[in-house]
Protein backbone atom coordinates (compact mmCIF):
# COMPACT_ATOMS: atom_id res chain seq x y z
CA UNK A 1 0.00 0.00 0.00
CA UNK A 2 1.36 3.39 -0.97
CA UNK A 3 1.77 6.42 1.23
CA UNK A 4 2.57 10.11 1.13
CA UNK A 5 5.70 10.10 3.24
CA UNK A 6 6.73 13.74 2.91
CA UNK A 7 4.84 16.99 2.36
CA UNK A 8 6.25 20.48 2.09
CA UNK A 9 5.32 23.82 0.63
CA UNK A 10 7.44 26.82 -0.07
CA UNK A 11 7.94 30.03 -2.01
CA UNK A 12 9.28 29.38 -5.47
CA UNK A 13 11.66 32.11 -6.52
CA UNK A 14 14.63 30.94 -4.49
CA UNK A 15 17.52 33.00 -5.73
CA UNK A 16 19.74 35.44 -3.82
CA UNK A 17 20.51 37.56 -6.89
CA UNK A 18 16.82 38.05 -7.65
CA UNK A 19 16.06 39.28 -4.15
CA UNK A 20 19.23 41.34 -3.98
CA UNK A 21 18.03 43.20 -7.06
CA UNK A 22 14.44 43.45 -5.84
CA UNK A 23 14.89 44.14 -2.12
CA UNK A 24 18.58 44.81 -1.45
CA UNK A 25 20.67 43.15 1.27
CA UNK A 26 17.68 42.21 3.41
CA UNK A 27 16.18 40.39 0.44
CA UNK A 28 19.33 38.36 -0.04
CA UNK A 29 19.57 37.56 3.68
CA UNK A 30 16.00 36.37 3.95
CA UNK A 31 15.94 34.24 0.83
CA UNK A 32 19.21 32.59 1.86
CA UNK A 33 17.63 31.78 5.22
CA UNK A 34 14.57 30.38 3.46
CA UNK A 35 16.76 28.32 1.13
CA UNK A 36 18.71 26.92 4.10
CA UNK A 37 15.45 25.85 5.72
CA UNK A 38 14.29 24.23 2.48
CA UNK A 39 17.60 22.38 2.07
CA UNK A 40 17.08 20.99 5.58
CA UNK A 41 13.64 19.83 4.49
CA UNK A 42 15.50 18.03 1.72
CA UNK A 43 17.50 16.10 4.33
CA UNK A 44 14.28 14.77 5.80
CA UNK A 45 12.83 14.07 2.35
CA UNK A 46 15.86 11.94 1.45
CA UNK A 47 15.45 9.95 4.66
CA UNK A 48 11.96 8.91 3.58
CA UNK A 49 13.38 7.15 0.52
CA UNK A 50 10.42 8.41 -1.49
CA UNK A 51 10.15 6.81 -4.92
CA UNK A 52 8.51 9.80 -6.55
CA UNK A 53 7.87 13.48 -5.93
CA UNK A 54 4.61 15.17 -6.88
CA UNK A 55 5.11 18.89 -7.42
CA UNK A 56 2.01 21.08 -7.51
CA UNK A 57 2.71 24.49 -8.96
CA UNK A 58 1.44 27.12 -11.37
CA UNK A 59 2.54 28.14 -14.81
CA UNK A 60 3.56 31.73 -15.51
CA UNK A 61 2.46 31.68 -19.14
CA UNK A 62 5.56 29.74 -20.04
CA UNK A 63 4.16 26.26 -20.64
CA UNK A 64 0.69 27.28 -21.72
CA UNK A 65 -0.01 30.21 -23.94
CA UNK A 66 -3.46 31.70 -24.24
CA UNK A 67 -4.47 28.97 -26.67
CA UNK A 68 -5.30 26.81 -23.66
CA UNK A 69 -5.11 27.34 -19.91
CA UNK A 70 -6.06 24.14 -18.05
CA UNK A 71 -7.47 24.37 -14.53
CA UNK A 72 -5.46 21.28 -13.62
CA UNK A 73 -2.96 19.54 -15.86
CA UNK A 74 -0.91 16.42 -15.18
CA UNK A 75 2.42 16.40 -16.96
CA UNK A 76 2.85 12.81 -18.13
CA UNK A 77 5.55 11.04 -20.09
CA UNK A 78 9.04 9.89 -19.16
CA UNK A 79 10.95 13.16 -18.90
CA UNK A 80 10.21 16.86 -18.55
CA UNK A 81 12.33 19.77 -19.71
CA UNK A 82 12.88 23.04 -17.98
CA UNK A 83 11.51 26.10 -19.66
CA UNK A 84 13.94 27.86 -21.97
CA UNK A 85 13.71 31.61 -22.40
CA UNK A 86 16.08 33.60 -24.56
CA UNK A 87 17.62 36.61 -22.82
CA UNK A 88 15.86 35.59 -19.60
CA UNK A 89 15.18 38.25 -17.02
CA UNK A 90 13.76 38.43 -13.50
CA UNK A 91 12.25 35.15 -12.22
CA UNK A 92 12.95 33.40 -15.54
CA UNK A 93 16.69 33.91 -15.05
CA UNK A 94 16.54 31.82 -11.88
CA UNK A 95 16.34 28.68 -14.03
CA UNK A 96 19.53 29.11 -15.99
CA UNK A 97 21.90 27.13 -13.75
CA UNK A 98 19.52 24.21 -13.34
CA UNK A 99 19.57 20.86 -15.16
CA UNK A 100 17.62 20.91 -18.39
CA UNK A 101 15.85 17.54 -18.10
CA UNK A 102 14.23 15.61 -15.25
CA UNK A 103 12.81 12.08 -15.00
CA UNK A 104 9.08 11.64 -14.54
CA UNK A 105 7.26 8.97 -12.55
CA UNK A 106 5.26 7.87 -15.54
CA UNK A 107 3.11 5.28 -13.77
CA UNK A 108 2.13 7.57 -10.91
CA UNK A 109 1.33 10.45 -13.27
CA UNK A 110 -0.79 8.16 -15.41
CA UNK A 111 -2.58 6.81 -12.34
CA UNK A 112 -3.49 10.29 -11.09
CA UNK A 113 -4.72 11.19 -14.54
CA UNK A 114 -6.65 8.00 -15.39
CA UNK A 115 -8.25 7.58 -11.99
CA UNK A 116 -9.08 11.27 -11.97
CA UNK A 117 -11.06 10.97 -15.20
CA UNK A 118 -12.82 7.91 -13.78
CA UNK A 119 -13.77 9.78 -10.61
CA UNK A 120 -15.05 13.15 -11.73
CA UNK A 121 -11.86 15.15 -12.20
CA UNK A 122 -11.71 16.25 -15.83
CA UNK A 123 -7.96 16.73 -15.85
CA UNK A 124 -5.90 18.04 -18.72
CA UNK A 125 -2.77 16.19 -19.73
CA UNK A 126 0.41 17.21 -21.44
CA UNK A 127 3.38 15.31 -22.84
CA UNK A 128 5.26 18.46 -23.82
CA UNK A 129 4.70 21.27 -21.32
CA UNK A 130 8.02 22.45 -19.90
CA UNK A 131 8.27 23.48 -16.26
CA UNK A 132 9.42 26.87 -15.03
CA UNK A 133 10.83 28.22 -11.79
CA UNK A 134 7.64 27.37 -9.91
CA UNK A 135 8.55 23.68 -10.14
CA UNK A 136 12.30 23.65 -10.43
CA UNK A 137 13.47 26.30 -8.01
CA UNK A 138 12.00 24.47 -4.97
CA UNK A 139 13.08 21.02 -6.20
CA UNK A 140 16.65 22.07 -6.88
CA UNK A 141 16.91 24.10 -3.69
CA UNK A 142 15.53 21.28 -1.57
CA UNK A 143 17.73 18.57 -3.06
CA UNK A 144 20.83 20.47 -4.19
CA UNK A 145 23.31 18.01 -5.67
CA UNK A 146 21.41 15.00 -4.34
CA UNK A 147 19.55 12.79 -6.83
CA UNK A 148 16.16 14.12 -7.89
CA UNK A 149 13.56 11.35 -7.83
CA UNK A 150 11.08 10.92 -10.67
CA UNK A 151 8.69 13.85 -10.63
CA UNK A 152 4.98 14.22 -11.25
CA UNK A 153 4.46 17.88 -12.15
CA UNK A 154 0.88 19.04 -11.71
CA UNK A 155 -0.11 22.45 -13.02
CA UNK A 156 -2.80 24.49 -11.30
CA UNK A 157 -4.16 27.59 -12.99
CA UNK A 158 -3.52 30.04 -10.18
CA UNK A 159 -3.44 33.25 -12.18
CA UNK A 160 -5.62 33.31 -15.27
CA UNK A 161 -9.19 34.08 -14.24
CA UNK A 162 -11.40 32.17 -13.80
CA UNK A 163 -9.32 29.83 -11.67
CA UNK A 164 -10.44 26.62 -9.96
CA UNK A 165 -11.87 27.19 -6.49
CA UNK A 166 -9.94 26.56 -3.30
CA UNK A 167 -12.43 23.83 -2.43
CA UNK A 168 -11.92 22.11 -5.79
CA UNK A 169 -8.16 22.24 -5.36
CA UNK A 170 -8.53 20.61 -1.95
CA UNK A 171 -10.77 17.91 -3.43
CA UNK A 172 -8.21 17.25 -6.14
CA UNK A 173 -5.61 16.78 -3.42
CA UNK A 174 -7.87 14.23 -1.75
CA UNK A 175 -8.02 12.41 -5.07
CA UNK A 176 -4.23 12.34 -5.25
CA UNK A 177 -4.07 10.87 -1.75
CA UNK A 178 -6.48 8.11 -2.74
CA UNK A 179 -4.42 7.29 -5.82
CA UNK A 180 -1.20 7.11 -3.81
CA UNK A 181 -2.84 4.98 -1.13
CA UNK A 182 -3.86 2.42 -3.76
CA UNK A 183 -0.42 2.44 -5.34
CA UNK A 184 2.70 0.52 -4.28
CA UNK A 185 4.82 3.69 -3.90
CA UNK A 186 6.15 5.92 -1.16
CA UNK A 187 5.64 9.42 -2.50
CA UNK A 188 6.70 12.93 -1.51
CA UNK A 189 4.62 15.97 -2.33
CA UNK A 190 5.45 19.64 -2.71
CA UNK A 191 3.27 22.67 -3.31
CA UNK A 192 4.93 25.90 -4.30
CA UNK A 193 4.37 29.63 -4.53
CA UNK A 194 3.45 32.50 -2.28
CA UNK A 195 2.89 33.57 0.17
CA UNK A 196 1.30 36.99 -0.36
CA UNK A 197 2.72 39.01 -3.24
CA UNK A 198 1.60 41.01 -6.24
CA UNK A 199 -1.94 41.79 -4.97
CA UNK A 200 -4.51 42.10 -7.74
CA UNK A 201 -1.67 41.28 -10.16
CA UNK A 202 -1.16 45.00 -10.57
CA UNK A 203 2.27 46.39 -11.35
CA UNK A 204 1.41 49.39 -9.21
CA UNK A 205 1.02 47.11 -6.19
CA UNK A 206 4.24 45.15 -6.62
CA UNK A 207 5.96 45.70 -3.30
CA UNK A 208 2.84 45.16 -1.19
CA UNK A 209 1.92 42.05 0.80
CA UNK A 210 -0.85 41.09 3.21
CA UNK A 211 0.92 39.65 6.23
CA UNK A 212 -2.22 39.54 8.37
CA UNK A 213 -3.85 37.28 5.80
CA UNK A 214 -0.76 35.11 5.53
CA UNK A 215 -0.52 34.65 9.28
CA UNK A 216 -4.17 33.60 9.32
CA UNK A 217 -3.45 30.95 6.67
CA UNK A 218 -0.38 29.76 8.55
CA UNK A 219 -2.29 29.49 11.83
CA UNK A 220 -4.95 27.33 10.20
CA UNK A 221 -2.30 25.09 8.69
CA UNK A 222 -0.43 24.80 12.01
CA UNK A 223 -3.57 23.72 13.83
CA UNK A 224 -4.81 21.46 11.04
CA UNK A 225 -8.01 23.50 10.71
CA UNK A 226 -8.52 23.14 6.98
CA UNK A 227 -12.26 23.68 6.81
CA UNK A 228 -12.06 27.53 6.78
CA UNK A 229 -9.56 27.35 3.93
CA UNK A 230 -12.10 25.63 1.70
CA UNK A 231 -14.15 28.80 1.57
CA UNK A 232 -11.33 31.09 0.45
CA UNK A 233 -12.75 32.99 -2.52
CA UNK A 234 -11.11 34.01 -5.76
CA UNK A 235 -11.67 37.60 -4.70
CA UNK A 236 -9.81 37.14 -1.39
CA UNK A 237 -6.91 35.39 -3.04
CA UNK A 238 -6.74 38.05 -5.76
CA UNK A 239 -6.85 41.05 -3.43
CA UNK A 240 -4.31 39.63 -1.00
CA UNK A 241 -1.91 38.40 -3.64
CA UNK A 242 -2.42 34.81 -2.53
CA UNK A 243 -3.24 33.34 -5.93
CA UNK A 244 -0.64 30.61 -5.58
CA UNK A 245 -2.16 29.36 -2.35
CA UNK A 246 -4.35 27.27 -4.66
CA UNK A 247 -1.31 25.02 -5.14
CA UNK A 248 -1.05 24.67 -1.37
CA UNK A 249 -4.75 23.80 -1.22
CA UNK A 250 -4.10 20.74 -3.40
CA UNK A 251 -1.41 19.57 -1.01
CA UNK A 252 -3.62 20.26 2.01
CA UNK A 253 -6.33 18.07 0.53
CA UNK A 254 -3.82 15.27 0.15
CA UNK A 255 -2.55 15.33 3.73
CA UNK A 256 -5.48 16.68 5.77
CA UNK A 257 -5.76 16.81 8.78
CA UNK A 258 -1.99 16.85 9.28
CA UNK A 259 -0.55 19.86 11.05
CA UNK A 260 2.10 22.11 9.58
CA UNK A 261 5.44 23.05 11.05
CA UNK A 262 6.67 26.40 9.82
CA UNK A 263 10.33 26.07 8.88
CA UNK A 264 10.68 29.67 7.72
CA UNK A 265 8.55 32.78 7.46
CA UNK A 266 10.13 36.06 6.45
CA UNK A 267 8.48 39.30 5.48
CA UNK A 268 9.82 41.33 2.59
CA UNK A 269 8.16 44.26 0.87
CA UNK A 270 7.89 42.21 -2.31
CA UNK A 271 6.68 38.89 -0.86
CA UNK A 272 6.34 36.92 2.33
CA UNK A 273 8.79 34.06 1.97
CA UNK A 274 7.71 30.81 3.54
CA UNK A 275 8.72 27.18 3.95
CA UNK A 276 6.35 24.77 5.66
CA UNK A 277 6.49 21.03 6.34
CA UNK A 278 3.79 18.69 7.55
CA UNK A 279 4.09 15.99 10.18
CA UNK A 280 2.90 12.78 8.53
CA UNK A 281 2.38 9.65 10.59
Amino acid at each position, binding site marked *: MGKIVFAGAMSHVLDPEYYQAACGDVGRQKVVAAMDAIASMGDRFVETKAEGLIVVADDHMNAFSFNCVPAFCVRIGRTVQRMVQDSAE*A*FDKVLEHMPEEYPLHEALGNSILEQGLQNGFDLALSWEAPVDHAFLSPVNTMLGKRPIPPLVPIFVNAFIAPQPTARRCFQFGQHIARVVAKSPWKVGMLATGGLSHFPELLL*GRVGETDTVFDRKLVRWMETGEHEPLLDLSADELHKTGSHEFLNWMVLLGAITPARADVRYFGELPRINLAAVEWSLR
Partner: protein
Amino acid sequence: MEPPVSRYAINSLLYHLKKDPDLRARFIKDPRTAIADADLTDAERAAFVAGDMRKINELGGYLHLVMSIPKIGTHGGH
Protein backbone atom coordinates in the same frame (compact mmCIF):
# COMPACT_ATOMS: atom_id res chain seq x y z
CA MET B 1 -16.37 41.05 -7.05
CA GLU B 2 -14.52 38.24 -8.79
CA PRO B 3 -11.50 39.02 -10.94
CA PRO B 4 -12.58 39.53 -14.56
CA VAL B 5 -12.05 36.89 -17.20
CA SER B 6 -8.66 37.53 -18.69
CA ARG B 7 -8.30 39.77 -21.73
CA TYR B 8 -7.12 37.74 -24.73
CA ALA B 9 -5.66 40.01 -27.39
CA ILE B 10 -3.37 42.03 -25.17
CA ASN B 11 -2.03 38.92 -23.46
CA SER B 12 -1.54 37.01 -26.66
CA LEU B 13 0.64 39.85 -27.91
CA LEU B 14 2.59 39.97 -24.65
CA TYR B 15 3.13 36.22 -24.83
CA HIS B 16 4.47 36.38 -28.37
CA LEU B 17 6.71 39.33 -27.53
CA LYS B 18 8.21 37.18 -24.80
CA LYS B 19 8.57 33.96 -26.77
CA ASP B 20 9.31 35.25 -30.30
CA PRO B 21 12.69 37.01 -30.47
CA ASP B 22 12.08 38.18 -34.05
CA LEU B 23 8.81 39.87 -33.18
CA ARG B 24 10.46 41.38 -30.12
CA ALA B 25 13.30 42.80 -32.21
CA ARG B 26 10.85 44.29 -34.70
CA PHE B 27 8.82 45.73 -31.83
CA ILE B 28 11.85 47.37 -30.25
CA LYS B 29 12.80 48.89 -33.61
CA ASP B 30 9.32 50.05 -34.68
CA PRO B 31 6.52 49.16 -32.25
CA ARG B 32 3.65 50.63 -34.25
CA THR B 33 4.50 48.64 -37.38
CA ALA B 34 5.31 45.47 -35.46
CA ILE B 35 1.86 45.33 -33.86
CA ALA B 36 -0.11 46.72 -36.80
CA ASP B 37 -2.03 43.45 -37.27
CA ALA B 38 -2.81 42.90 -33.58
CA ASP B 39 -6.48 43.04 -32.57
CA LEU B 40 -6.10 45.78 -29.97
CA THR B 41 -8.24 48.68 -28.81
CA ASP B 42 -6.92 52.18 -29.41
CA ALA B 43 -5.94 52.48 -25.75
CA GLU B 44 -4.11 49.16 -25.80
CA ARG B 45 -2.29 50.00 -29.01
CA ALA B 46 -1.24 53.39 -27.65
CA ALA B 47 0.11 51.76 -24.49
CA PHE B 48 2.17 49.27 -26.49
CA VAL B 49 3.53 51.96 -28.80
CA ALA B 50 4.50 54.04 -25.78
CA GLY B 51 6.05 50.99 -24.08
CA ASP B 52 3.93 51.83 -21.04
CA MET B 53 3.92 48.50 -19.19
CA ARG B 54 2.02 49.86 -16.23
CA LYS B 55 -0.80 50.94 -18.54
CA ILE B 56 -0.70 47.62 -20.40
CA ASN B 57 -1.04 45.85 -17.05
CA GLU B 58 -3.92 48.08 -15.98
CA LEU B 59 -5.67 47.30 -19.26
CA GLY B 60 -5.52 43.58 -18.51
CA GLY B 61 -1.99 42.57 -19.42
CA TYR B 62 -0.90 39.64 -17.29
CA LEU B 63 1.57 40.80 -14.65
CA HIS B 64 4.15 38.05 -15.02
CA LEU B 65 4.41 38.67 -18.75
CA VAL B 66 4.68 42.41 -18.24
CA MET B 67 7.51 41.72 -15.81
CA SER B 68 9.47 39.17 -17.81
CA ILE B 69 9.60 40.11 -21.50
CA PRO B 70 13.30 40.49 -22.22
CA LYS B 71 14.44 44.06 -22.80
CA ILE B 72 10.87 45.33 -22.67
CA GLY B 73 9.45 44.17 -19.35
CA THR B 74 9.60 46.05 -16.11
CA HIS B 75 10.50 44.19 -12.95
CA GLY B 76 8.79 46.48 -10.48
CA GLY B 77 10.33 47.93 -7.35
CA HIS B 78 10.91 46.10 -4.03
